[in-house]
């Protein structure tokens, strides 16, 4: 591995955020990352740049400045409508070569976690996944990246000081979104960097939104999750009603419930499902096996509803409601309506 000299490192400046674009709209995780990048850039007295790749994205990009971006690089092309990892990698590779960013961060979404590793390999950049904390050495720009590993059992601090840019992904809702300031302005750079026709490319045939698989657990504020105690698919209907009443809540599940076929895998939280970090996690009829706990124990507020008050979940919960959930949840739904 070639180690960069201090002088070579100095050629790399500014903190970049790769925007998350869905159906032509920039997603909240991008604003959160601009907030994080702003803090880093202020320490380094440098700028926050956001790269937006997509189709018809110019309008949505204008808002970026109000969240704290100084520069937006727009690569707008109809061929970027669907998610083609390879094309976006090629574009990023050229942009990095041209503008030399010190740091590149991106949301740890399915898209981000596919695109960034590809870019990192092509640049021989270190990449740290799913960071929960980022800080920077004001002298040399080395990024200190904190992330959970081993299902949240260990926090590791990782450095990639030998190369530039340094790269990291951050999960949605880990960083706080800044308050937009509509008076802030910035520069927009339009780049036409569409790689020429390569015969071998991914062909996106169809895109489906809001289907049964569209469970944005990572993006939810509140997750209402069910386990074996839900007894069957009917139980999950009850949870869906509950979630609807609470507003902004997604439905999660333990592996036992998913394996029983009561609810699709996309809802699974835990070691082999998704790791979540929501404001509120309401566990209904989940005993709290370690494989489940590691996927949700860093949520801010944990509420458990179970008839057995001795389960591991009831022990780690901030609020433990003891009783029959089939009696309690309908009462909760009823009482919310009365509020």
């Amino acid at each position, binding site marked *: 591995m070639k180690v960069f000299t201090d002088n070579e490192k100095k050629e790399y400046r500014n903190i970049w955020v790769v925007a998350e674009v869905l159906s032509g709209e920039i997603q909240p995780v991008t604003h959160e990352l601009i907030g994080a990048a702003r803090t880093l850039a202020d320490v380094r007295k440098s700028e926050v740049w956001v790269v937006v790749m997509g189709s018809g994205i110019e309008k949505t990009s204008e808002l970026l400045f109000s969240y704290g971006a100084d520069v937006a690089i727009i690569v707008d092309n109809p061929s970027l409508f*669907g998610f083609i990892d390879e094309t976006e990698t090629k574009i990023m590779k050229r942009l990095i070569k041209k503008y030399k960013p010190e740091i590149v961060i991106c949301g740890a979404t399915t898209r981000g976690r596919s695109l960034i590793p590809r870019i990192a390999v092509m640049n021989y950049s270190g990449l740290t996944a799913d960071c929960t904390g980022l800080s920077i050495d004001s002298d040399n720009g080395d990024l200190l990246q904190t992330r959970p590993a081993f299902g949240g059992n260990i926090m590791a601090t990782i450095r990639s000081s030998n190369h530039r840019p340094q790269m990291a992904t951050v999960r949605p809702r880990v960083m706080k979104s800044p308050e937009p300031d509509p008076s802030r302005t910035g520069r927009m750079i339009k780049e036409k960097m569409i790689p020429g026709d390569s015969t071998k490319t991914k*062909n996106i045939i169809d895109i489906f939104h809001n289907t049964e698989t569209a469970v944005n657990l990572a993006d939810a504020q509140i997750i209402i999750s069910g386990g074996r105690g839900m007894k069957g698919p009917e139980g999950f209907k009850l949870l869906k009603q509950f979630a609807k009443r609470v507003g902004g809540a997604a439905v999660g599940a333990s592996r036992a419930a998913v394996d029983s076929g009561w609810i699709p895998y996309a809802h699974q939280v835990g070691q082999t499902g998704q790791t979540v970090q929501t404001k509120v996690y309401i566990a209904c009829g989940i005993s709290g096996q370690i494989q489940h706990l590691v996927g949700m124990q860093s949520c801010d507020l944990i509420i458990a509803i179970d008839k057995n008050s001795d389960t591991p979940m009831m022990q*780690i919960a901030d609020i433990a409601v003891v009783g029959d959930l089939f009696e309690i949840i309908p009462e*909760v739904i009823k009482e919310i309506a009365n509020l």
Partner: protein
Amino acid sequence: MKIVVCIKQVPATHDAKIDPETKRIIREGIKAILNPFDNYALEEGIQLRDQFGGEVIAISMGPQKAENSLREAISVGVDRAILLSDRAFGGSDTWATSYVLAKAIKKIGNVDLVICGKQAIDGDTAQVGPGIAAHLDWLQATYVMAVDEISSSSIRVKRMHEDGYDVCEIPFPAVITVVKDINIPRVPSLKGVLASKKYKIPVWKPDDIDADKSKIGLDGSPTRVVKTQPPPFRHASTKKIEGTPNDCARSLLKELRMRSII
């Protein structure tokens, strides 16, 4: 069709400890299992071979005892297994690991499709699959939840996203990473277990795959773990709510309103 499945042996999560000196995972004396997601990768490889003919090969980089996971792969029906093991591979991060695996895939030759699990449960990065694709400069599809069609020259898959899924067709050679939705892994047959016991697993060293020694192990890895610590302590001052269902519901809502959640 020639398919390679990349599998990793991982410590059973809740046993994981870190050596305070070296910052590496202490692997000695810890139960090691096949990364759960890799069972789905293996099953998909086997099903595609059964459907299309050809050969499916499992590879793993790790210490000698990772051969146990490769034996598991043989027992469920892969045709061949190869272990990449050498001191020089130790300490590899995702950049270097995907470099080594890509080199091994090149060495195997004429591979059409590489299948990886969505992520390994120790590092939890999901970076090795796309990393392999990048090193090989092949196309990739991640978070694959279904293979809809396969021909001698391409594969059509459903990719899971936060907001739904898409269907895309990718020409070979390609790398896919798979999620649990994709299949139900089989259990090994008795015959398979016997075969796996007898199978002699070849061990490849850096020279066998023409690896550039400056790109493997700790020296080849752009990331460094500089510190590890336990996660922030979760205080468990549990507030218990009991009573009639209606009492419970009201008390719970009071707590939620107090915190401006509803």
